[in-house]
């Protein structure tokens, strides 16, 4: 918690310096937020190189938009909303390579999902199924889990009411459950 407060205070100080014309102060913002922003982009596109390009573009937009930031919301909220907006439009412009939801693979033999590397296979199947969801459900799920299952934070990043995000999460889970019934029926505890 103290680390978060320290990060917020450092953000406020750097934002004030950049707004006053000190370009180099933006380096502190990049240093603190590069990992979250690249990982968020990676969850959207699943490609490391493209994730870095998208994150770089998000930082440039943040730099240009910083004059308009008045501190009404936390800097992190503002930055995530800006990045999410950019990532969504980037993916609409050049879609990621995904398979259709019906074609997303479920492991052929769920009984074999016992060992650690098979757990990874299972996560991969879930990941592919999520990325194959229609965009509005996919984005709600990505943001919800990226923000540690915090609906208000996901709603702020998406610029949507919380109720809408909850409805999309519910529908997204339904689609996943229908796609991966055997996988969910067979947890590691269930087969032991």
């Amino acid at each position, binding site marked *: 918690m103290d680390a978060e407060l320290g990060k917020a205070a450092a953000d406020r100080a750097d934002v004030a310096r950049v707004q006053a014309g000190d*370009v*180099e102060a*933006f*380096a502190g913002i*990049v*240093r603190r937020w*590069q*990992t*979250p922003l*690249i*990982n968020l982009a*990676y*969850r959207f596109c699943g490609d*490391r190189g493209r*994730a*870095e390009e998208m*994150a*770089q573009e998000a*930082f*440039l937009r943040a*730099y*240009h938009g910083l004059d308009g930031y008045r501190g009404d919301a936390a800097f992190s909220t503002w930055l995530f909303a800006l990045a999410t907006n950019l990532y969504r439009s980037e993916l609409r412009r050049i879609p990621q390579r995904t398979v259709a939801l019906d074609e997303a693979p479920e492991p052929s033999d769920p009984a074999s999902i016992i060992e650690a590397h098979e757990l*990874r296979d*299972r*996560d991969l199947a*879930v*990941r592919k199924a*999520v990325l194959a969801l229609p965009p*509005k459900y996919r984005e709600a*799920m*990505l943001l919800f*889990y*990226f*923000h*540690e*299952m915090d609906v208000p934070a996901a709603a702020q990043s998406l610029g*949507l*009411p919380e*109720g*809408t995000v909850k*409805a999309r999460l519910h529908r997204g*889970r339904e689609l*996943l*459950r229908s796609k991966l019934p055997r996988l*969910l*029926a067979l*947890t590691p505890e*269930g087969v032991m």
Partner: protein
Amino acid sequence: MSEMDRDDELDRMLVRSFGPPHAHAAHAESIEPSSGFAASVMERVREEAAAAAALGPIRFPWRRAVPGICMVVLAVAVCATLLVLASIGAVRLASHAAFSATAAGPQAAIAGWAETAMRLHLGWLAIGMMIAFVPFTLSRGWMGGRQRT
């Protein structure tokens, strides 16, 4: 396996795949920025800051804007004049109808008001507003529906 257990398991799988990088540091899907990433971002920021400084503040294009501004001012003046003239006419007709009503009883009053409404084309005005209102309401309903789902 109950539905709640299935939801919990789905949550665990989704956190592993899509959670924040610090939640599952050992997870393969969490990535670190490449070594030159921050430097490359700052280089571009510096370039853009230098380019913006070289350009200076963007001047307002008065030469292009003046004809448009003149047209808008003229249109507003014409509309305001027409509105004032129409209001004066409406007040005159209404006072005439009110005078007739007090002088000749309720039936004459109704006829007087109807005549006033016809002269001001209030019927057409009401129909026009209703026609405009229907697509407005429908489009709002559709947009609301799209936002909620």
